[in-house]
């Protein structure tokens, strides 16, 4: 029996494909499986194409998976709109709505013959069982339970819970639709058994959430008391979570009139002594540029989340991309260093967010969390997180001694100055975006400017020494390497396993800290490296360029980059590694022995 199954389903908005995916993931979670689900939509608000991809596994899931094991098309136009997002291979089982009238022999998939194809009268079954087409997705869930053994019990539990108040009749109708799906599967067995093995850790309660909710929850855990923001896809859910929960902790949210006011309010809250956050996506990040510079020179802690989507400008608002790194690291005029962190999954979004607040507080600086549409909106099952492991840092407050002739911007040996806030007796000072002296008086002295620039940059030195912000997997001495960040890191983690299975001696570097660039961490990693790939969803290969800017990469390290909405497959990454290897072997024969 298989340990891992990747399903992709597409239909038009009304088909309830996404809620089917959610029921499926929930069921899998209840049955103790690991799972992840991503959604993707057209630009219509309603009635447009929508799809989801659900990956269920007996082991922890690294990413939403590559080629589909199971493809479900409620109609072909919509399915095809998702192109590379729902890739069908020779080992895919394709299930589609018979009512489309398309013959199993000529489904519109070019250049591939699926393992098996089923035209299923889904809507017909829905009508006969439930009297309404709206039960189509329940039929699909039945088919999946029947063929692949997921959620035979748990799916209906969930549905029952959900529909409870809507009355028994509706529940029964769905039960009939579900059973009909199972029955159909039984009557049409697969060539080869594809049922998934039972989950090991059955029963242990799992967490189920997406990147945005996790980010907001982590922020509140880290002590964030204020959120100022403005809605924008795909980051809005972060603000929504705050509006639902932050009040409970004495905090507040401001849905501002625009992004500038949103971050402005957060800057104000931080000045007033509270941990503050704002969240946005590309266009909003661009608008926050000036305020980010203010926070840097005023040395105010602040966490800014940028959930990346396709750019430039409005670009592709519902698709994932990694093209905001330049903006995150370099936007805002003047000489300023602003730390940038990136999560790679829903799970580590928790740690990364807490870390962002710690860094912001410790170094009195804005910190950017660069998430992306995939992580922010994908749902993941996770094992419970032991929050007691996490240290929560607070900004350095002035003591009685500091308050004698208080110097807000005192250049200490750590270059970090004790910071007061309104309400604190003896700590009054003038915060400003103008260059200022240690006491905070405006100045236009070149020497003070040089001194303050030194202070504001040198304070980050210890941050660049941190090794815990860099994950290295695989053989530390490997000559082949992968480097990736954000959601693409998950794909590379799987590529790493795959490549090692194929005998490649590879390692993987996944940085959580993207900027400032910790030269040493990379140099240590690259010492053993002869060839490798920096993999990213950025047309300009922004991450590869930022690395070049700060270190001399081994000649054999190349960029593997392309535009967003064109997700990488683990297999193609391994393919690229194979190619590099052969080149390398041609260049210096016998240098590398594929490991046993």
């Amino acid at each position, binding site marked *: 029996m298989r340990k891992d199954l990747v399903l992709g389903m597409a239909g038009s908005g009304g088909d309830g494909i996404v809620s089917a995916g959610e029921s499926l993931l929930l069921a899998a979670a209840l049955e103790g499986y690991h799972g992840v689900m991503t959604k993707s939509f057209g630009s219509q608000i309603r009635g447009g194409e929508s799809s989801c991809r659900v990956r269920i596994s007996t082991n922890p899931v690294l990413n939403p998976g590559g080629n589909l094991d199971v493809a479900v098309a409620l109609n072909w136009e919509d399915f095809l709109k998702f192109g590379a997002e729902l890739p069908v291979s020779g080992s895919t089982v394709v299930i589609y709505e018979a009512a489309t009238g398309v013959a199993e022999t000529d489904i519109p998939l070019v250049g591939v013959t699926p393992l098996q194809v089923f035209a299923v009268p889904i809507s017909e079954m829905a009508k006969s069982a439930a009297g309404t087409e709206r039960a189509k997705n329940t039929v699909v869930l039945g088919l999946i339970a029947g063929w692949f053994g997921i959620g035979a019990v748990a799916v209906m539990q969930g549905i029952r819970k959900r529909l409870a108040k809507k009355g028994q009749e509706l529940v029964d109708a769905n039960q009939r639709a579900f059973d009909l799906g199972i029955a159909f599967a039984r009557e049409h067995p697969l060539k080869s058994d594809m049922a998934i093995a039972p989950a090991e850790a059955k029963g242990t309660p799992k967490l189920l959430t997406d990147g945005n909710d996790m980010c907001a929850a982590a922020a509140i855990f880290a002590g964030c008391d204020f959120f100022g923001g403005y809605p924008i896809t795909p980051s809005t859910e972060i603000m929504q979570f705050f509006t639902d929960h932050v009040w409970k902790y004495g905090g507040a949210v401001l849905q501002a009139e625009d992004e500038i006011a949103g971050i402005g309010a957060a800057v104000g809250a931080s000045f007033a002594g*509270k941990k503050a956050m704002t969240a946005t996506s590309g266009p909003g990040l661009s608008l926050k540029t000036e305020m980010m510079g203010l926070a840097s020179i005023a040395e105010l802690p602040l966490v800014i989340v940028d959930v990346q989507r396709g750019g430039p400008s409005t670009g592709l608002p519902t698709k994932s991309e990694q093209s905001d790194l330049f903006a995150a690291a370099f936007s805002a005029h003047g000489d300023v260093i602003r730390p940038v962190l990136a999560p790679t999954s829903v799970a580590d979004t928790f740690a990364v967010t807490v870390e962002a607040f710690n860094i912001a507080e410790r170094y009195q600086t804005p910190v950017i969390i660069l998430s992306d549409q995939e992580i922010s909106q994908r749902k993941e099952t996770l094992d419970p997180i032991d929050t007691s492991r996490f240290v929560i840092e607070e900004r350095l407050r002035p003591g009685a001694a500091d308050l004698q002739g208080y110097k807000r911007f005192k250049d200490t040996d750590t270059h970090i100055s004790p910071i007061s806030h309104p309400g604190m007796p003896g700590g009054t000072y003038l915060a400003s975006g103008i260059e200022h002296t240690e006491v905070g008086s405006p100045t236009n002295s070149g020497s003070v400017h040089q001194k303050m620039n030194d202070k504001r940059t040198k304070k980050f030195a210890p941050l660049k020494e941190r090794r815990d912000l860099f994950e290295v997997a695989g053989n530390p001495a490997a000559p082949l390497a992968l480097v990736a960040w954000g959601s693409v890191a998950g794909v590379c983690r799987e590529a790493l396993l795959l490549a090692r299975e194929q005998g490649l001696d590879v390692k993987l570097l996944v940085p959580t800290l993207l900027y400032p660039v910790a030269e040493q961490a990379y140099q240590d990693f690259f010492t053993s490296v002869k060839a490798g790939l920096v993999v990213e969803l950025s047309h300009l290969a922004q991450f590869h360029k930022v690395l070049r800017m700060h270190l001399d990469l081994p000649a054999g390290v190349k960029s593997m980059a392309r535009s967003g909405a064109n997700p990488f497959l683990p297999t193609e990454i391994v393919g690229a590694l194979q190619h590099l290897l052969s080149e390398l072997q041609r260049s210096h024969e016998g240098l590398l022995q594929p490991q046993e």
Partner: protein
Amino acid sequence: MSATCEFQAKDYRSDLKPIWCPGCGDYAVVQGVYRALAAIGRPPHEIAFVSGIGCSSRIPGYTTAYGFNSVHGRALPIAQGIKLANPDLLVLAAGGDGDGFSIGGGHIAHLIRRNMDITYLVMDNQIYGLTKGQLSPTSQKGRITCTSHYGSLEAPVNPLLYVLAYGAGFVAQACPSDLVGMAAILEEAIRFPGFAFVNIQSPCVTYGEEAQQLKGLKAISQSLAELHHDPSDRLAAMDLAQEYGTKLHLGVFYKNPDPAPTFEALVKERQALLMKGAPPRERILDLFIKS
């Protein structure tokens, strides 16, 4: 909030020496602020004074309050963050006509509809002072400046009418020509429980026109009290406000007799309501448990 104890004007004056031009109206404004604050008596460290950028926006640095000389046009968003973070603070915002009604013009209506207890004073000099004399949003049509040598083609904004239309609970106008009156108005504005706006005609001696200097302003000024204007009559206030630019009405245009609850008050209610029985922060992930 600490009990109010005895403070004098000088307790609010910082030792940063103002670098305004000799004769600038803003000298009087900061004096008025010292006096109003002394009358109210909150200790300086319980006051947050936020401004944007401009000559007028230097004002927080000349007080002993926690000051924030931020970026151009953004005093109000920052002030709101401060107020929500710590509603017990006395929050003042200030800036110029350009700072407030040009680049910052999009923020005022929203602060007003939220009605936070913030007092906003605009030092209106009909010019961009700090950048050395360009048209400001309150410059009259035809005004000749270094960006309008052939005269401005635009009608000015009307700060008073706008703010009244936005629904501000307290709207007044003052001028250094009457320092005592200005201090009194500022005090009343600060004491008003909700958003309060004070437009101060503060002459720019360097780039202002003759008519905009104290003498000229005195000539067109007119006390609203003497006009027996009823400050609870909003429509009448709007009607009077239409004369902005031709007459200089001094005093209170509008004061809401029963002020709406402030945003921060509503927030406190909500917090009190929801804090009961909320899981501690370290258990917040329980929200995601499925079983």
